[in-house]
């Protein structure tokens, strides 16, 4: 269903822009750091981009496990297989710089997707969610649902500490809470995997649910596990704002166990990233005055967008994301590229 809607989105994007180019020899590889549901939208995004822009291919290639070495080995094998454009979620913001530089050294185009490399690197840019901003806005939504933050106690469930985005999220939640007079009484990190998330979130809520007014989650798996935990507890007193678009989470929003979720735009990243990679291979260059944003890792950041979806928006969340993708795509070439 989701894929069909995204496909429709894509068709409408192409219809809007009329940007179907001639056949190209661009072979795009979309490579996440490892298996994770967040990235699955890249697969359809690549297929759609290949079809819409006439690319030789745009394939989703997943390292079999979350290991920097496994990702490096996969990327090296993809060069051998003739891929000449790489959209990579860095296994490590610093450790992946070397392999990306080597990929570019083979004549390929490379960009960081969904997560950034630490400057300097040969990646043309980084396109992903402004994670700090997303966490900040999500926390504000949570505190608003609690009737204001003064004196409220919230907990934060988040991803792996070795992911640079995690620190940004922790700081952003802390900032939004302190600005509203709320207190982050616990941050539980390193739980963006089912087993540790189940263990730690359930244990925490079993012992401290009475002390908690709200939950903010800033990683996919903790959001799903926390939503399930609140459903089991059955107490809608605790408000929660999650992240991403897992069906479990969306249903929990509909049923009132979760206040809402901060949507990201992985499809837009893969689709627009593939488009940009092909354009760059055809001779376009990055504009000298391209309005890149800055974050903690890079000065070449493009925000792929984020939006809050509460109970009133959750049924129509794809439209919200369509809107963001469409807006970004419409102006992407004129804003960032010299062709």
């Amino acid at each position, binding site marked *: 269903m989701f894929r069909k809607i995204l496909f429709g989105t894509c068709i409408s994007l192409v219809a809007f822009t009329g940007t179907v180019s001639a056949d190209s020899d661009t072979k795009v590889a979309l490579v996440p750091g490892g298996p994770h549901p967040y990235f699955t939208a890249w697969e359809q995004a690549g297929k759609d981009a290949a079809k819409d822009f006439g690319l030789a291919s745009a394939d989703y290639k997943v390292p079999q496990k979350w290991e920097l070495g496994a990702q490096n080995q996969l990327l090296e094998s993809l060069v051998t297989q003739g891929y000449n454009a790489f959209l990579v979620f860095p296994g490590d913001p610093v*450790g992946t710089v070397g392999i990306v530089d080597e990929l570019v050294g083979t004549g390929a185009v490379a960009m960081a997707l969904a997560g950034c490399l630490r400057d300097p690197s040969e990646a043309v840019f980084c396109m992903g969610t402004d994670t700090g901003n997303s966490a900040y806005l999500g926390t504000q939504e949570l505190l608003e649902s609690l009737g204001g933050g003064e004196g409220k106690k919230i907990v934060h469930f988040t991803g792996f500490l070795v992911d640079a985005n995690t620190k940004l999220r922790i700081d952003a939640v802390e900032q939004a809470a302190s600005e509203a007079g709320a207190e982050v009484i616990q941050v539980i990190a390193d739980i963006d995997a089912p087993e540790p998330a189940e263990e730690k979130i359930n244990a925490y809520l079993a012992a401290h649910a009475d002390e908690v007014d709200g939950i903010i989650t800033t990683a996919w798996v903790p959001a799903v596990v926390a939503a399930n935990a609140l459903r089991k507890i059955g107490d809608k007193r605790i408000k929660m704002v999650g992240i991403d678009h897992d069906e479990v989470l969306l249903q929990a929003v509909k049923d009132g166990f979760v206040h809402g979720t901060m949507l990201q735009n992985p499809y837009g990243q893969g689709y627009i990233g593939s488009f940009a990679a092909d354009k760059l291979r055809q001779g376009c260059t990055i504009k000298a005055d391209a309005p890149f944003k800055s974050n903690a890792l890079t000065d070449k950041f493009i925000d792929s967008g984020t939006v809050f979806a509460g109970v009133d928006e959750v049924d129509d969340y794809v439209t919200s994301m369509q809107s963001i993708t469409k807006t970004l795509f419409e102006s992407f070439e004129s804003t960032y590229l010299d062709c």
Partner: protein
Amino acid sequence: MNNFGSTQSPSQDVGILDDETSPAPGSGRLTQQLRRLLLSNEFGLLALIIIFSIIFAIVTPGFTSSFSLFAMGRTAAVNIIIGFSMMVVIVSGGLNLSVGSIGVCVAMGGGWLMQVAGFPWYLGVVGALALGAMIGALNGVLIVKTGLHSFIITLATMSIFFGVMIFLTQAGSFRELPPEYVTFGRMKINGVVSPLLIVTLVVGVILAVFFKLTTAGRRLLAAGANPDAAELSGIRVDRTIILCHAMSGVLAGIAGLMLVSRTGAAIPSMAGQLGQDWLLPAFLGPVLGGTLLTGGRASVLGTLLGAFLVTLLTTGLLLLQVGAFWVQTCLGLLLLAAVLIDLLRRSYLARHNLI
């Protein structure tokens, strides 16, 4: 492979690098050597490497390209050293689960020495390896003093070492490293050979000489085969345990520093959470290569070939575009096939009175 089902006892292998078989009556020296060669794990692994190389070269375009060969050699270089770091402990009858953790600690220590302390790269490397030796020796001391199995001790120190490293570095990385050091990991000799592979071969030769020709090496093998007998014969088994763990620390450190040179930065996540990403390559090389888990026998060449075979299979499967989630399954099936082929080889030799 031996290992793949050998019934030899550890004591039969004390102090040797190759399988010893009783000479058949009347057979000549040359025939004996040929038999020994055909029976060796090293020959079996080499044959498998050649067979799979030919298969991959035929069915996967690009397998023999210079980039592919370079990348495969560079990956194998690190995996082989990781295998060595486990092998030197397995020889003693123990295990070292903290190889990855030590490797990252050494890498981060080297990064700190080069970037923050301003050491030239060669002093940074020496200092970092000294750190590896100390950390490894600490494992050995704890094992000797407590009398607990190395599995327990190194399981605990794996977390301790990694935790201390994360605390000291605040999960930060070092990337302002001397250019000549970083260039080394990306250099190509004749467009194909990584200098890291040469480092690995040099380390392998040193280890082979150590086990074959030095008293310390032979004592280590003897202590691993039968600690009580070794103790009675005057060998200080506790010292050999500390020695082998110190060596393991140095070797893990070499692997860590090779990765730093290859990635251009020292990063806490280079071996995964707690260094666990290294455990599989650490065991695969030695076990496939003929190092007995019960101790007393080491095969440097076998470990090298075993680790290379795994790297070769992984690369070949990736190039075959086997679905990402099937790579591990196919790798396991191929390794099982490798075991069975080795058994068939032995069976064939036996049936034809070649052994």
